[in-house]
């Protein structure tokens, strides 16, 4: 997993299966970014093809923490299956989903 900071936007790029361990790693990185001043998070999942429901439940916890701080969270690079699953579980109601990282960064920066 890779992390990059552009001003107050943190971009976390995942790689591979997101299960409980993968989700916890994302949460750890996300919370570290929030603690060091990030206002918005972009989760780029273009190198991930499976996110299981445990991983998604951890992503929801991250989203809730961002919402508590009045911040922004956006996803990008989702496969159609991940996109569908996020919509089933309601993430799409609370977080923006963009096709590309550039659009996601622009979206959270202007929000």
């Amino acid at each position, binding site marked *: 997993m890779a992390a990059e900071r552009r001003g107050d936007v943190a971009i976390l790029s995942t790689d591979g299966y997101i299960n409980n361990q993968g989700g916890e790693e994302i949460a750890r990185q996300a919370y570290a970014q929030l603690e060091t001043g990030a206002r918005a998070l972009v989760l780029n999942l273009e190198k991930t093809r499976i996110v299981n429901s445990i991983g998604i439940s951890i992503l*929801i916890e991250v989203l809730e923490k961002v919402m508590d701080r009045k911040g922004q969270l956006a996803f990008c690079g989702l496969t159609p299956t991940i996109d569908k699953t996020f919509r*089933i579980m*309601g993430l799409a109601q609370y977080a923006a989903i963009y096709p590309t990282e550039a659009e996601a960064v622009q979206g959270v920066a202007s929000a």
Partner: protein
Amino acid sequence: MSLDAMGAREISLTIPVAPDMEIVATAQAAAVGEFIEMSRDKIDEVKLALVEACINAFEHAHARDDRLHLIFRVGRENARDFLEVEVLDRGRGFDQASIEQPSPEKTFSGRQKRGWGLQIMRSLMDSVAITSGEGGTRIVMRKYK
């Protein structure tokens, strides 16, 4: 692959109840999906449904043999090819009527973050049949090409 009397071809796989074994199962699902030239996106849907079936069994079934028994079956019905995955555990079973339906509202109010497995399976597959009792649970999921 063996050819059974119904003209379906199938592969059996047994995996231990252990972390990440669901990924071993998805590799087999992908191989069988590719065999019938199913699209990558549909294979992804089968893989995630299978992951959810496996982790549900890992967490809740308490299988007496500490194993999950899988059958990957390809066949043809009404001129449409399909991939069918059967997941069998020899665990304690569950009462489907007692399962609380998840919803985004419950999830985001903090009341129920987990419990989405069955809903995800049903949403991603064309059909899901579940039989469960004292002998264990059998889930048969089908996806048309």
